[in-house]
């Protein structure tokens, strides 16, 4: 990359099964572009998959689409990063009141789902969620 100016690529996918996998191709391409190790690329891919299937399943988007923005950049004197923004024009939610899952609840409590946000937080270096009546925006970053 020339200097610290971020490169931005935006991708819009329809709300449809397997489109989340089609979107991961962009993570691989941009991850390779900044020479991110393959295991980290895989982590970003899964975080993106989780954010997309949430938008597909929970958001009830008005436009039947999910809008993704990928940025590669570099903090001053820092390592390169890959940033993924997942934006849906859906109903929004309050992530503060989402119950945090645990293996115990998952196994004995009978509630197997509810791990998507947790997986994103575990796999990415930072995750910021903003949500309202306008929809939801998940901004995630991973350093190379």
């Amino acid at each position, binding site marked *: 990359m020339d200097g610290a100016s971020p490169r931005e690529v935006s991708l819009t996918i329809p709300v449809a099964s*397997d489109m989340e996998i089609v979107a991961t191709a962009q993570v691989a391409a941009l991850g390779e572009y900044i020479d991110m190790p393959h*295991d980290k690329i895989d982590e970003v891919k899964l975080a993106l998959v989780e954010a997309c299937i949430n938008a597909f399943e929970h958001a009830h988007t008005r436009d039947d689409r999910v809008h993704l923005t990928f940025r590669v950049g570099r903090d001053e004197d820092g390592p390169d990063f890959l940033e993924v923004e997942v934006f849906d024009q859906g109903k929004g939610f309050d992530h503060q009141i989402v119950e945090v899952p645990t293996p115990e609840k998952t196994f004995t409590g009978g509630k*197997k*789902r509810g791990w998507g946000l947790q997986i994103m937080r*575990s*796999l990415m270096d930072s995750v910021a969620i903003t949500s309202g009546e306008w929809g939801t925006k998940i901004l995630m970053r991973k350093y190379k």
Partner: protein
Amino acid sequence: MSESCKINVERRGDVAVFWTDGYINNQGGEEIARQAYAQLDAGARALVLNLEKTRIVNSIGISILIEVLERVMDRKGVLAFCNLTPTIDKTFRIMGLAQYASIYPSLDQALQAVAATG
């Protein structure tokens, strides 16, 4: 669609070995569950899932694998995984699947370990 997961099963004595190929989402998870329950009903004691050709398992897929694990445990059976990518391994640990199922680096090691439980 080539994204969907292909599953091959081979029975070796009382062990059923599953080879997955591709993305494990809800459909892929359900197909594994269907075939796993068929193997249990047909007397399999242990299931070994070789995920060598799977690079992504989403959280819905994992939640279905956890259901399979519970069913296997109810029957005092054994469920083992092998050849996980580092990311799949990490996710299995986060969700606690790794606490109740065994994870082996290779199919050979998984088969040896489940044989020892027989």
